[in-house]
């Protein structure tokens, strides 16, 4: 196909939208994100296609595999467009029922509708489900609505109009000005103003410059970038094209986690299609600008999310950070001026070009503008991907969008920013989503991982878990991080194993301060955060572990007795049935006893007991 013009874009948009909104053709949007694939959405989709074919309905209904819908816990998900009916946890058997009763009969199938955990009522429309109704989709505006492998679907949703405007109508200075006006700050975690970063690189002398996209999402519990790439890969490509114009670059690289095969596949398809339409390659939109994008796969090193380490990795070296300055805007990849932006940041750029920086800045707080995507997981009802305006209280994020804590358990804390972040306890839940406000309570905005923990989580064990991750991923270049995190881990393990001494608390604080001060890169400088924030809010748990040799949350096996509290045991037998080692002795209506010879301390019985009767 020949090079696209703005008229072509408009024509594709009109035709595609006319089909999408046509009353004659229903669109059946099946979520094809990694989460839904794992729960069997491909089989459901195939069954649906077959069912429609068998009934001769395939000219009246179109099945579309979309990217991540966001409500991952409910997969496989089907949304009927234009009705807006939301079906969840579908099976291949369920498909027949949905086709027969809803698509032909026009009556929603109650059984597969969402049930509100608090009101116990079924909700038919996606927009009425609290998980969706509190959100403000900007970055994720196309999620669940387009086929990520179709460039026309993207163009229909105003795709590549931002690039057209930037390449044809705007100067690099105007692009940068618009980015500055938007107040957009890097969504990867550090929150550096994007416009400023571009400004530095654009003023940097040199004819060869690079635009990099950081898709090395490594924080455990975070899957924002993966979902964006899976649902809307063209938005990221378009963002990179605009960035290239702003700094005058001709080559871009996307550094993607190799653990994300589906995201990489969709990116490859997107790049291919953009090339076919002349949106990548030479003389894009007849503007005279040339720009190519290549994907570079990482190889599983958390530190490669750090900008200088990422660049070393692309060069084929060990991905180790180096001291800054010089900053990458002056000497980055192969010592050339380089900008590195996160997936989420880049996905926002096209809309800023189309609607203007002022539009973007119209929501948010004084210092944090726009919206932020969060991946909510852990002990929370609505696990999934959400996008809320900056300035939303954390409480709303967890209890309104997230639907609160499952079971009858109580909220304990929320970990923000993954292993580099910190925990926020109940008393600070009214903190707003804002870079500075979150930093004040000892956590960081981070890339957007939100891990909710209920009362059964041991905070010392949590700190130990994060430190285990960090010391494993420390690249080993600088001593404070390499040795310090290892020693922190050892001390925490000692405490969890019941050998903690009073002076360990001092050691933890002193070591943390040194690591924070003296480490080379962001990984080390933020590594002690989980320890510091749990010490700040949950010191009593440390004290219980060290002085009383007790784990209040009953998580640390070494501090548990593996005995039954005869006063609390009701003789229900749940532990007996659950025990994998046959170590529970129990007869009907009698209290349980644990045979310590056989017990493997797996804690399964602790999980199953509803009466808190295990010690």
């Amino acid at each position, binding site marked *: 196909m020949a090079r696209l013009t703005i008229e072509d874009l408009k024509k594709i948009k009109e035709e595609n939208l006319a089909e999408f909104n046509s009353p004659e053709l229903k669109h059946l949007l099946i979520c094809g994100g*990694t*989460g839904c694939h*794992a*729960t069997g959405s491909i089989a459901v989709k195939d069954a649906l296609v077959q069912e429609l074919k068998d009934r001769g309905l395939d000219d009246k209904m179109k099945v579309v595999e979309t990217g991540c819908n966001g409500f*991952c*816990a409910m*997969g496989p998900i089907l949304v009927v467009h234009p009705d807006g009916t939301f079906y969840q946890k579908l099976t291949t058997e369920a498909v027949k029922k949905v086709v027969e009763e809803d698509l032909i009969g026009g009556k929603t199938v109650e059984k597969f509708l969402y049930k509100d955990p608090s009101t116990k009522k079924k909700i038919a429309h996606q927009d009425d489900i609290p998980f969706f109704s509190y959100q403000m989709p900007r970055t994720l505006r196309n999620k669940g609505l387009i086929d990520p492998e179709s460039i026309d679907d993207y163009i229909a949703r105003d795709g590549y109009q931002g690039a057209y405007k930037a390449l044809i109508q705007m100067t690099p200075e105007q692009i940068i000005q618009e980015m500055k006006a938007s107040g957009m700050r890097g969504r990867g975690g550090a929150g550096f103003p994007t416009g400023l970063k571009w400004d530095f690189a654009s003023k940097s002398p040199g004819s060869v410059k690079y635009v990099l996209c950081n898709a090395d999402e*490594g*924080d*455990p*519990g*975070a*899957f924002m970038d*993966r979902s964006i790439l899976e649902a809307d890969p063209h938005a990221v490509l378009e963002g990179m094209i605009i960035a290239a114009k702003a700094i005058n670059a001709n080559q871009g690289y996307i550094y993607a986690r*190799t*653990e*994300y095969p589906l995201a990489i596949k969709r990116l490859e398809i997107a790049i291919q299609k953009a090339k076919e339409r002349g949106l990548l390659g030479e003389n894009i939109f007849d503007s005279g600008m040339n720009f190519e994008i290549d994907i*570079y*796969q*990482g*190889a*599983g*090193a*958390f530190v490669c999310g750090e900008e200088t380490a990422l660049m070393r*990795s*692309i*060069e*084929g*070296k*060990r*991905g*180790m950070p180096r001291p800054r300055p010089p900053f990458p805007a002056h000497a980055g990849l192969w010592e050339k001026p380089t900008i590195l932006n996160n997936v989420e940041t880049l996905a926002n750029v096209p809309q800023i070009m189309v609607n203007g920086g002022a539009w973007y800045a119209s929501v948010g707080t004084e210092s944090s503008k726009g919206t932020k995507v969060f*991946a909510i*997981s*852990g*002990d929370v009802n609505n*696990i*999934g991907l959400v996008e809320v305006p900056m300035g939303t209280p954390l409480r709303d994020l967890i209890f309104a969008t997230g639907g609160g804590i499952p079971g009858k358990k109580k909220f304990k804390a929320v*970990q923000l920013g*993954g292993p580099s972040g910190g925990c926020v306890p109940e008393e600070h839940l009214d903190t707003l989503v804002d870079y500075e406000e979150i930093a004040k309570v000892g956590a960081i905005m981070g890339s957007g*991982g939100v*891990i909710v*923990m209920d009362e059964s*989580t041991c905070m010392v064990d949590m700190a130990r*878990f994060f430190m285990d*991750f960090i010391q494993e991923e420390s*690249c080993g270049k600088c001593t404070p991080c390499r040795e310090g995190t290892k020693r922190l881990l050892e001390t925490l393990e000692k405490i969890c194993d019941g050998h903690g001494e009073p002076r360990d608390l001092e050691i933890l604080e002193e070591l943390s301060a040194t690591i924070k001060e003296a480490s080379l890169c962001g990984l080390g400088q933020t590594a002690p955060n989980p320890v510091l924030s749990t010490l700040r809010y949950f010191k009593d748990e440390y004290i219980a572990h060290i002085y009383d040799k007790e784990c209040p949350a009953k998580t640390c096996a070494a501090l548990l007795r593996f005995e039954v509290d005869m006063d609390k045991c009701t003789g229900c037998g749940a532990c007996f049935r*659950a025990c*994998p080692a046959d170590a529970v002795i129990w007869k009907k209506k009698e209290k349980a006893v644990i045979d310590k010879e056989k017990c*493997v301390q*797996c*804690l*399964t019985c602790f*999980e199953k007991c509803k009466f808190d009767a295990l010690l």
Partner: protein
Amino acid sequence: MDSEAGREEAALLNRLRTRLADFEKDRANLLSILRMIQETFSYIPEEAIYMAADHLDLAPSEVYGVATFYNQFKFNPPGKYPIKVCLGTACHVKGGDIILENFERKLDIREGETTPDRDFSLERVACVGCCALAPVALVGEAVHGHMAPSKVEGLFTRIQVEKEMAEREKRRHESAR
């Protein structure tokens, strides 16, 4: 190493030189080359490191240094059924380490090792992004969600049954012939 696997590996090594020629002699290709080697052998054999170093004009120690830096590269052959247990945050909260411990006990190997018959290998992975299904274990490419100690037992029973069925099928084919 048994002879069949050994012969197969020797043949692959012979072919590796031609495959290396497809890569430009540019250091930036090192990771791609290592990935290609791992895809070919399912791990990185020592001889392949020398070949890659030779191709890129680098010291073998340099290549080995890069390969060991990245978690993705393995220096032990994987099992026929590679088992990965996710220990990301969500899985940790939901007891992923208990699942790993169950696998270790059942297979009598530690995490990172392969059983002597090369049937199973066991490793921990950071986060496979299926936090909603925590705790998660992977056997090959298949994701098994909401794992529990009883499900670990179930997995092995299923693999055993599948294996026996395959063997029976094979025998039937052979006797038919």
